[in-house]
Each structure stands twice: as C-alpha cells, then as structure tokens.
C-alpha cells in the first residue's frame, strides 16, 4: 500500500513565523502535490512537483514556497504565516503519467494548521 506521511497532524503557529510542513512518500512516486482544504472552497492546489528540484505553481501559490531535494520528500513552506493561511493542508503523490495515462492520487492524513 502507498503510504504518504505528513509530519504533524495539528500545528499552531504565530503570525509572522516561518512554517515548514513536511511530507514523505514511500512508493518512489515522481509526482507530489500540496493542496489546502477550506470549508466552502474545497481542495485547491498550491504547488506540485514532477521530479527532484522541479516545482510548478498551482492555483493559489501566493505566500507559499516548496522544496523537493529528495524524490520521497516534498516540503511546503509558509515564509511568513498569516491568519488567512489557517487551513487543512494535504499532501499527495502519484506515479508519473506516461503516454496520456495517469495514476491514482494518494493522500496523506493532512495537517491542520492554525495561525494565531
């Protein structure tokens, strides 16, 4: 079974702090993704990565950055946390799509971040 592990289930940070959310997958997946989930807004893509050191902006990248130094690890960074970044953050991974084929997306358990 694919396992996507997020380092923290709950996190409380103060406004202005630099926050790191870590995600590790154990299935040698090429693709990794960061989403945030908010009531009434659903899941929205922040950033994704197809390979080590590669990154692509999603729909809402403002205020975030990412790092992928190793294939199995994808980190989301909040440079200066703000209260509007209070949310559930979900990491996901999938195999590389080849020839038009895509593979199922697998999610971690999520990190509920509160910024006060």
């Amino acid at each position, binding site marked *: 079974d694919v396992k996507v592990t997020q380092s923290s289930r709950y996190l409380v940070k103060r406004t202005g702090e630099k926050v790191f959310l870590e995600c590790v997958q154990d299935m040698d997946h090429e693709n990794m993704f960061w989403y945030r989930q908010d009531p009434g807004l659903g*899941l929205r*893509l922040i950033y994704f990565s*197809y390979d080590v050191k590669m990154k*692509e902006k999603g729909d809402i990248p403002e205020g975030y950055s990412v790092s992928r130094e190793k294939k199995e690890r994808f980190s989301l960074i909040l440079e200066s946390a703000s209260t509007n970044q209070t949310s559930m953050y*979900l990491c996901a991974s999938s195999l590389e799509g080849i020839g038009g084929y895509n593979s*199922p*997306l697998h*999610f971690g358990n*999520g990190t509920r971040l509160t910024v006060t």
Partner: protein
Amino acid sequence: GIQVEQSPPDLILQEGANSTLRCNFSDSVNNLQWFHQNPWGQLINLFYIPSGTKQNGRLSATTVATERYSLLYISSSQTTDSGVYFCAGGGSQGNLIFGKGTKLSVKP
C-alpha cells in the same frame, strides 16, 4: 481552467438505499478520479476512471468522456459510507481540479 461541478451537494440516505452522485466538467479531461473523505478527514482514492465503467464492491463509476460527466453509484449503502465524495479532473500532467463534493449521511 477546468470547472468541476458536483451534485447533489448533500444527500441523506437510509441504510440499504442506493444512490447516484454526478460530476460535470466544463472541458475535456483525460484524468478523472473519485475520492471519499471519511469523517476523520482521510481522503481515499476510489477510482481512476477517465472513461468507461469500473466496479469495486458496492461502488461503481461510469465516465462518459464525450459528454464530460461521470457518475458514482453506491448500492446498499452502509453507515461507513458516510463522508464527502469528491470528483477531480485534469490533464495529463497529473494535477487535479476538485469539485466541492457531495456530503453523504447514511442513517442506520
């Protein structure tokens, strides 16, 4: 970008009933997936189904790609089926756009 609409937004069923959830896309997609989010927040992949029909136990899904919609069927529903069902679609790069979900409550 692609718009994903799900219906109904909320659904209440008695245990044992059947239901159909629908997902419409504003444009063609070649990557379509269904997910279930349980009451503890865990998102589980149910189907990768860009076209055709698949079945997994009491769940089945059908995608009609030419008409840009997909259906998820739940038969003989159980209380453990409760939660939110999401469909998501996208292109070949693997990044998915999610619908707002259908919240299902199955009563004993």
